[in-house]
């Protein structure tokens, strides 16, 4: 077992060193640190590391440390992650003390701005807590005070004021002084606000602040808008754009989407994650259940995995130990120099804006790649031909350059000529905000796909919805995209939506009223969809028991939309390793378990109305592993086969922005500002020759389908496993969608090669039949 040494800078400035296994998860180290600190109320805290771009990132507790830190720099800092709005509700003094330490640092560095008087007051409580009562006979107290850092622009006058106030605190215990400190600090307007640089739709520098109550928008020091969590329906990001979808107000009829531009995609993703976490922590009773979420969510996989504030309060109310003794120290602020302190303050925005223009990460050309690796035993059917009846509507125009090079499993597609290395990436992540609901019906979840930036009319047509019931029964509707001809970019325009707590129904016809406007259209398209689904299944065996065409369709859609799923990666609690295991398990199931009982099929074929189908969801499947056909693997000898080619489409993306209320009031919604993103999409498909028929012959029957998502540093892998029965053969098809994301520093070829290699290793008895390289380049953006 390989061990590495981790260095963790604690809040008092001391360094904590410990050894962890090289493959340890973030959680392990975090617990080690908390143990060292004797901290029980740990959920407010987290570990940070500096990424390659010197950005402070939160260490994900559920993931391996090694895969997050990227560099071999095992250096971390222990920090407050969620600032409790009312610190007096914390159970233990030690927790309050640690919060004080963080705030002292925040205040001294200027991250938490405060007035002269407040600086002095906070400083005086700090002295009282750290060194106790003022000693009148202490020589030259001012000299001592001036050695400590209390404020970014500390001066003699302030120090005198601190001393004056400090004298008045005589008799206060350290814990009382901490409490007073927190009572004052918590009222500061920037308390607990995590600031991110951004630009509004007009390219104006703003700051976005994430906090317990929601999202704040600042221009310079001024708050120009605020979106409370309950107002936010959905949070998403795509490339360097960050979007929130706003619940319509009492008088408004439509939801609106507000878009912001971040410096780069990493910044957008970071902001998105912080939003997801803060919302979960402060607004939910419990984190979203991972298993269900996994199934439904074809997209982003990141979710807050820790305890929510409600849970941690509950847990800490049970703390039953004598108050641990600990020593308060002021050593840190004595020695610290503020020069290097990375801080963002709202006033900075303006100044930085000038520099921004020159920074390389504002590169307007971006590029991304989505790779689909098909690992499937035996079947080498062309995906595109599968869709034939509907592909024109379903898929984006996937046309690609004739390619003669083989892309068999061994022939890693790394031969693909990648475009410039200066690539930014196609990323879209979405989370639909789940608000605390008093009603305990956890039912319906809607996953809808549509472009976050698209005007609502288009959106309506494009949405794809998945409704999920408590028992993880899914009604899925997939619809062809209508305006193919207009917007050809397709996949990047999709979005996933997640509406919790709506009532549930199994069959499509029962889907309740409150469905969105799209429903009508969806209904019309239902039939088509069903057809496609049937055709979509592959050649395989055994009489059909279960139809799950919806899922199949969704797979096809994924196929055509690609990023839809992978990039709107929805979260899972499961870690990579676990996911991988699961993939394996699934695979085994399909081959090793020959018992199929038609009656056990969770949702019979026999319900004719259910054209759009009830699907046996993930959870259920795990409990009922019996419905698999005989294992009958057919090895494909994949030969290269050329598919299609396409011209680069151009997409216009619009966004509706109301980033400041003034504008909003003046124009209600400033729909006129239309940033246009020209995007070039190119899809290259490598295909192995087909073994059996064209697959469009007999319709197979889909037995199970499953989507698993996992993520590493620069790749996101969505594994979609489908088992189909056709003519007495069962077939397991595993489709991996790997989104390789990153900037210039990523070697796409290598990442792709690695992905294919991993796929092969994981499923040695399968062969890669198809590799689709999809890359997207943002042509230009003019602000």
């Amino acid at each position, binding site marked *: 077992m390989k061990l590495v040494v981790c260095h963790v800078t604690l809040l008092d400035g001391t360094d904590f060193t410990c050894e962890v296994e090289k493959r340890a998860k973030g959680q392990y180290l975090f617990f080690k640190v908390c143990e060292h600190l004797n901290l029980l109320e740990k959920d407010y805290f987290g570990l940070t590391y500096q990424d390659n771009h010197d950005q402070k990132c939160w260490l994900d507790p559920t993931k391996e440390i090694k895969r997050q830190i990227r560099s071999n720099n095992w250096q971390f800092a222990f920090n407050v992650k969620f600032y409790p709005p009312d610190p007096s509700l914390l159970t233990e003094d030690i927790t309050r003390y640690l919060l004080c330490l963080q705030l002292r640092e925040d205040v001294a560095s200027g991250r938490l701005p405060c007035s002269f008087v*407040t600086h002095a007051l906070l400083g005086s409580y700090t002295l009282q807590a750290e060194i106790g009562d003022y000693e009148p006979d202490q020589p030259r107290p001012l000299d001592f005070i001036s050695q400590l850092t209390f404020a970014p622009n500390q001066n003699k006058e302030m120090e005198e004021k601190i001393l004056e106030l400090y004298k008045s605190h005589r008799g206060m215990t350290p814990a009382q002084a901490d409490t*007073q400190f927190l009572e004052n600090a918590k009222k*500061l*307007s920037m308390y607990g606000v995590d600031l991110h640089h951004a630009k509004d739709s007009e390219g104006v520098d703003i700051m976005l602040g994430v906090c317990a109550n929601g999202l704040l928008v600042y221009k310079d020091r*001024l708050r120009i808008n605020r979106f409370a969590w309950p107002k936010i329906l959905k949070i998403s990001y795509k490339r360097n754009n960050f979007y929130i979808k706003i619940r319509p107000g009492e008088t408004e009829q439509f939801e609106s989407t507000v878009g912001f531009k971040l410096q780069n995609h990493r910044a957008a993703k970071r902001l998105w994650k912080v939003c997801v976490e803060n919302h979960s922590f402060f607004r939910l009773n419990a984190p979203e259940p991972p298993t269900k979420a996994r199934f439904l969510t074809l997209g982003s996989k990141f979710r807050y995995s820790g305890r929510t504030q409600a849970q941690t309060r509950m847990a800490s109310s049970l703390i039953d130990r004598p108050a641990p003794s600990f020593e308060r120290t002021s050593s840190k602020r004595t020695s610290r120099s503020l020069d290097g302190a990375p801080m963002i303050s709202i006033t900075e925005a303006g100044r930085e804006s000038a520099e921004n223009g020159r920074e390389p990460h504002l590169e307007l050309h971006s590029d991304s790649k989505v790779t689909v690796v098909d690992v499937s035993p035996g079947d080498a059917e062309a995906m595109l031909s599968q869709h034939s009846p509907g592909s024109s509507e379903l898929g984006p125009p996937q046309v690609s350059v004739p390619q003669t090079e083989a892309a068999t499993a061994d022939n890693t597609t790394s031969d693909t000529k990648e475009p410039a290395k200066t690539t930014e990436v196609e990323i879209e992540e979405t989370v639909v905000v789940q608000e605390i609901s008093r009603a305990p019906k956890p039912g319906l979840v809607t996953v809808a796909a549509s472009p976050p930036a698209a005007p609502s009319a288009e959106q309506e047509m494009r949405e794809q919805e998945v409704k999920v019931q408590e028992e993880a029964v899914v009604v899925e509707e997939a619809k062809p995209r209508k305006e193919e001809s207009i917007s050809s970019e397709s996949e990047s325009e999709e979005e996933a939506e997640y509406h919790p707590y709506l009532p549930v129904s199994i069959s499509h016809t029962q889907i309740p009223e409150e469905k969105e406007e799209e429903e009508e259209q969806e209904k019309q398209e239902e039939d088509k969809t069903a057809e496609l689904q049937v055709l979509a299944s592959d050649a395989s065996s055994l009489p059909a028991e279960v139809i799950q065409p919806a899922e199949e369709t969704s797979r096809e859609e994924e196929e055509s939309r690609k990023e839809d799923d992978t990039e709107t990666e929805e979260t899972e609690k499961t870690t990579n390793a676990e996911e991988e295991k699961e993939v394996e398990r699934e695979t085994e199931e399909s081959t090793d378990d020959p018992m199929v009982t038609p009656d056990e099929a969770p949702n019979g074929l026999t319900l004719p109305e259910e054209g759009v189908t009830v699907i046996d969801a993930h959870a259920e499947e795990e409990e009922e592993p019996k419905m698999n056909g005989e294992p009958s693997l057919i090895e494909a000898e994949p030969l290269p086969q050329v598919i299609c080619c396409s011209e680069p489409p151009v997409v216009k993306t619009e966004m509706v922005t109301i980033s400041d209320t003034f504008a909003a009031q003046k124009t209600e919604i400033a729909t006129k500002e239309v940033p246009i993103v020209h995007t070039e999409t190119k899809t290259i498909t490598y295909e192995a020759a087909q073994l059996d028929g064209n697959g469009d012959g007999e319709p197979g029957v889909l037995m199970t389908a499953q989507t698993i998502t996992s993520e590493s540093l620069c790749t996101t892998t969505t594994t979609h496993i489908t088992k189909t029965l056709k003519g007495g053969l069962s077939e397991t098809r595993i489709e991996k969608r790997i989104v390789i994301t990153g900037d210039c520093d990523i070697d796409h070829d290598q990442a792709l090669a690695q992905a294919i290699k991993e796929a092969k290793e994981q499923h040695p008895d399968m062969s890669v039949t198809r590799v689709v390289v999809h890359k997207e380049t943002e042509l230009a953006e003019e602000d």
Partner: protein
Amino acid sequence: MAGLMAGYGHYTHAVVRGIPASLAKEALRSSQTEVDLAKAVKEHEAYVEVLRTRLGLEVVELPADESLPDCVFVEDAAVVCGDTALITRPGAESRRGETEAMKGALKDLNLNIVEMTDENATLDGGDVLFTGREFFVGLSKRTNQRGAEILADAFKDYAVSTVPVLDGLHLKSFCSMGGPGLIVIGSSEPAQKALKIMQQMSDHRYDKLTVPDDLAANCIYMNLPSKGHVLLHCTAEEFPESAKVFEKLKDHMLIPVSNLEKVKVDGALTCCSVLINKKANI
């Protein structure tokens, strides 16, 4: 020990200024009306008397300046919060001179003076609503974004949100604080819209008291030792319907104050004084 936001409405001092004869003819106004100077002077004297005698505030009375017809409306010249005073840069050029005397008076009261020197900034105190927890700054004909920014910089502890003022002279032409967490608001559409924005922008919850007349929504709240909640509001003579609404406030010591003449030159109750709390602050 007073920390942040302690004792909203506690005041010890008030700065007021006399009415120059030039007010009758030269003071800025949004509608052409005749001002009866004698009545205006009398009205103002009564106002000052309430502050001094009835409420026991220490009143600093600045002499009127004939060259500054609007100088009685001292509120626009300075924003005081805690022991910091921001000397503004009034939006109307003819009023810029008003800040000089105000600065001197506030300096004498030992307040920390912050001056708005930026020539691109304008701010009238009438556009600044301090709720005890945060500031709302109306962006109006008189106040611009830059002015609001400088205010935010002067009072770093507090959130400063901007509110568009599309109708009326100032933000406080249709609203004011009627108590801690209580916003008095006019019932016109622009007023209600502005309130909505303030509510959206705020992390705090405010109660609202809607009065039929926008101008009547401008009142002065104080929390004084031995007197408790005090509210100076419009008279029944001026706004009968709105006065009825105020009369329903049971916990407040209600003091109707006439403003019939000054309103003709867009002066409201808050306009005529700058309130300061000297003792409670550190």
